[in-house]
C-alpha cells in the first residue's frame, strides 16, 4: 500500500459513524460517574462496562474476522481510545484489545478469539524501572533442561491486577541494556510463583507490581522466537503507544470541553470569565495545540494501518504531542476552573491524574521526542 498516495487524514464516513456510535454509547454509560464510584469503593476495574464495550465489538476492533473480530484497524482503534479518553472510560481496551490482540495476531492460538470476544483479558508486563525502557529488561528466564524458570519483578503493570493472562518480557540471553536475548512468555496470571501486588495508582485504575518467583514455563509458553522477543513485542508496544496517544488526545478534548463550558457559564465581576481576553487567548492557544496534535494522531493510525513496521516515527510523534497537549489541557483546566477545579468533588482532578499516568505509560514526552529525532536523522 505504501507506494500509493497516502490516505486522507480526514475521517472517512465509516470512521465518523464509529465515533458517533462510541460517543453516544459513552454518553449513556457516564463513565466518569462510574469511575468516581469505583474509586470511592476501592475497586480498580469495571468488568460490566467492558462487557458492554465488548458486546459492541470494541474488543475485536483489531482482530481478523476469522477470529471473531472486525479488523477495522488502528485508526478505528484510535477513535475508540480517543472517545474513551474523553470520558475517562476505564477498560482493559489498550492492554487486551490493542496490545495483546496485536501480539497474538497471526499466531496459532484460540486466545485471540477469546480476546476479541472480551472473554479474556491481558496485561503487558515489560518495564522494571520507573521509566519505560524495553532494553533494560533484567527479569531472568533461565533454562532448566527444556524448561524455563522465571525470576524477577515487573513494575507498575497497567491492568496487571485483574488480567487473566500476562505477556511478560524476560531475558533468556544477553545482558540488561541489550536488545538481544529477550523472550516473550504468554502465561496465565495465576500460575504458581506469580505474585501480584496492587499499586494504589493516583488514577484509581488497575496497576500492579508483578513478581515472578521461580515461575516455571515451557516452550509452549513462548510467544514468537526465543531470544528475539523484541520482534514479538514491539508491534504490540507500538500499537499500544498509538492507542494511549489517542486516549490522551481525547482526554485533552474532554478537559477542554469542560473548561470552555465553564468559561461561558461562570461569571465574575458581573461578566462571563470567558470574555476576559487573557483567558480567550490561552483557550485559543490550547485549541490550536489540540488541533495540531489531532493531525499527529490521525497520521499514526494511518501509518500503522499502512505499514506497521515503519510506523514508529508516526507513533512516537503522536505520543509525544499528545502528552504535551494533555499536560497543557489539564494545567489550564485546573487553573481556569479556579478553586472548584481543585476539589475532589469536581471531575477535573480525574483528568489531571489520568493524564499523568497515561503520559508515563509506554514512554513519556522526552522518550518519544528523542525517538522522533533519532528516526528522522
Amino acid at each position, binding site marked *: 500500500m505504501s507506494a500509493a498516495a497516502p490516505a486522507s487524514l480526514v475521517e472517512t464516513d465509516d470512521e465518523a459513524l464509529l465515533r458517533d456510535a462510541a460517543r453516544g454509547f459513552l454518553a449513556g454509560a457516564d463513565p466518569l460517574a462510574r469511575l468516581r464510584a469505583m474509586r470511592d469503593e476501592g475497586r480498580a476495574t469495571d468488568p460490566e462496562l467492558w462487557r458492554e464495550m465488548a458486546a459492541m465489538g470494541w474488543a475485536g476492533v483489531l482482530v481478523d474476522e476469522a477470529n471473531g473480530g472486525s479488523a477495522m484497524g488502528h485508526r478505528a482503534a484510535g477513535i475508540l481510545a480517543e472517545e474513551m479518553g474523553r470520558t475517562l472510560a476505564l477498560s482493559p481496551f489498550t492492554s487486551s484489545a490493542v496490545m495483546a490482540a496485536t501480539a497474538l495476531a497471526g499466531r496459532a492460538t484460540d486466545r485471540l478469539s477469546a480476546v476479541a470476544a472480551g472473554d479474556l483479558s491481558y496485561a503487558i508486563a515489560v518495564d522494571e524501572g520507573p521509566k*519505560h525502557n524495553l532494553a533494560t529488561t533484567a527479569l531472568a528466564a533461565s533454562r532448566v533442561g527444556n524448561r524455563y524458570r522465571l525470576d524477577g519483578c515487573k513494575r507498575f503493570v497497567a491492568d496487571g491486577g485483574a488480567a487473566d493472562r500476562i505477556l511478560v518480557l524476560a531475558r533468556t540471553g544477553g545482558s540488561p541494556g541489550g536488545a538481544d536475548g529477550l523472550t516473550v512468555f504468554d502465561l496465565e496470571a495465576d500460575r504458581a510463583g506469580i505474585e501480584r501486588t496492587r499499586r494504589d495508582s493516583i488514577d484509581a485504575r488497575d496497576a500492579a507490581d508483578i513478581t515472578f518467583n521461580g515461575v516455571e514455563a515451557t516452550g509452549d509458553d513462548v510467544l514468537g522466537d526465543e531470544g528475539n522477543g523484541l520482534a514479538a513485542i514491539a508491534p504490540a508496544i507500538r500499537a499500544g503507544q498509538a492507542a494511549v496517544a489517542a486516549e490522551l488526545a481525547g482526554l485533552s478534548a474532554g478537559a477542554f470541553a469542560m473548561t470552555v463550558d465553564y468559561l461561558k457559564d461562570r461569571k465574575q465581576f458581573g461578566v462571563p470569565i470567558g470574555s476576559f481576553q487573557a483567558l480567550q487567548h490561552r483557550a485559543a492557544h490550547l485549541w490550536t495545540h489540540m488541533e495540531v496534535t489531532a493531525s499527529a494522531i490521525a497520521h499514526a493510525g494511518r501509518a500503522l494501518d499502512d505499514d506497521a513496521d515503519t510506523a514508529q516515527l508516526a507513533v512516537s510523534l503522536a505520543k509525544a504531542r499528545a502528552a504535551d497537549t494533555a499536560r497543557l489541557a489539564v*494545567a489550564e483546566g485546573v*487553573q481556569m476552573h479556579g478553586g472548584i477545579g*481543585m476539589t475532589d468533588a469536581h471531575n477535573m482532578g480525574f483528568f489531571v491524574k489520568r493524564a499523568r499516568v497515561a503520559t508515563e505509560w509506554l514512554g513519556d514526552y*522526552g522518550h518519544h*521526542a528523542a525517538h522522533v529525532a533519532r528516526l528522522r536523522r
Partner: protein
Amino acid sequence: MVVDNALAHFRASTAAWLEENCPEPMRGAGWSEDEICWGGKRWQFTSDAQRVWLERMAAKGWTAPRWPTEYGGGGLSRAQDKVLAEEMARIGARTPLERIGLRMLGPALLEFGSEAQKQRYLPPIVRGEMRWCQGYSEPGAGSDLAGVQTRAEDAGDHFVVNGQKVWTSYADKADAIFALVRTDRDAPKHKGISFVLIDMESEGVSTRPIRLISGKSPFCETFFDDVRVPKENLVGELNGGWAIAKYLLTHEREMIGGGARGLLGGRAISSILGDSGIDDPVIAADALRTEVDTLAFGLTMERYKDAAEAGQGVGDASAMLKYAGTELNKQRYDLMMAAGGSSALTWDGEGALAPEWLRTKANSIEGGTSEVMLGIIARRILELPA
C-alpha cells in the same frame, strides 16, 4: 563595620536565654507538619517540650516579637527581631507557635482595631490560647473577593449573620473566624463590606471539610445560619472592611510566596535528578531551567526581604512574588513527577510525590489567582490603562 554595642549585648543575652530555655526536642531540622504547634482552646500538645517551649516564649512575648509589650508582645525593634531569628536559627529552635492569628489577624488589629479589641484579642493570640481562621472566599465569588454575599443584618446590639464561606483553612479546629460580611446591599460592592470577628462556638456556625484532588485538606466550608455577632466584634468602620481585607491580602501573598520558597529549599534539583539516573534530554533541560529559576527566585525573596529590612515596603510587588513563587513551585513538582516516572504515580509508598504535586496546583489559585496577580502588576505597578 559599625558595631552596635546594645545589639551585641542583646544577641549575647538572647543566645544565652535560648540555650537555657529551648528544650532539646524543640531543636534541629527535619520536623514534620504534624508537629507544628497551632495553639487554641482545643490544642493537644504533642509533647511536654512543645508545651514548655510555647509557655516560655509566650512569657517573653517572643511568639510575637515585634508586638507592643502592653498586648503581650516582645516589643523588639526590627534589628532585635532579626537577631532573635538568627539566634533561633543558629540552634535550630522551632517556631513555638503558628500562624494565622499571629501573622494575619494580629497585624490587622494593631492597624485597624479598637483599643478594647487589641486588649481582648492580642494577648491570647500571643499565648497560643486562641486559634483563628479566615473567612474571605465564598462559593461563586472566586477572584471577585469584593462580591461578598454573606450578609450581616443590624439587629440592634448585634448583627445576624447568614451565608457561607469556602476555603477557610482549619475552620474545624479554630476558636474564632475573622470574616468579610456584607452590611450594605445598596452601596457599590467594595463599600458595603465589614470586617467582623465571630466565635466559632456561636450557635448556627457549622463547618464541613473540603477534600481536594490531592486528598485531605485543611480547607473547610463554613456555614452561618442566623448567627448572632455582638456589634463590638466589628473591626474598623461599618462598611469599611475592604481596606482591612486589602491589607491582609498583601500579607497573605507574601506568606504564600515565602512558603513556596520554603518548599524550594534543600537539595538542588539537579542532584535529585542525578540520583535517579534519568537519560532524557527533555527532563535534563527542564531540570537546568528549574534549577536556574529556583536559585534566582530564592535571591529575589532575599532581595525583597533586604528591602523590607531597609524599610522599603514590598507593597504591590507581593503580587509578583506570589505569581513567580507559585508558578515555579508547580514547574518544580511537574519536573519531579516526570523524573519519578511510575514510582511517583501512587498515593503512598517510597517516593510518593503525588499528593504534594497535586497540592501545588492550588498554589496559583489560593490567596489570589495568578491572573489576579498579573492584573495587579499590570495596573498598579506598570500603570497600564484599565
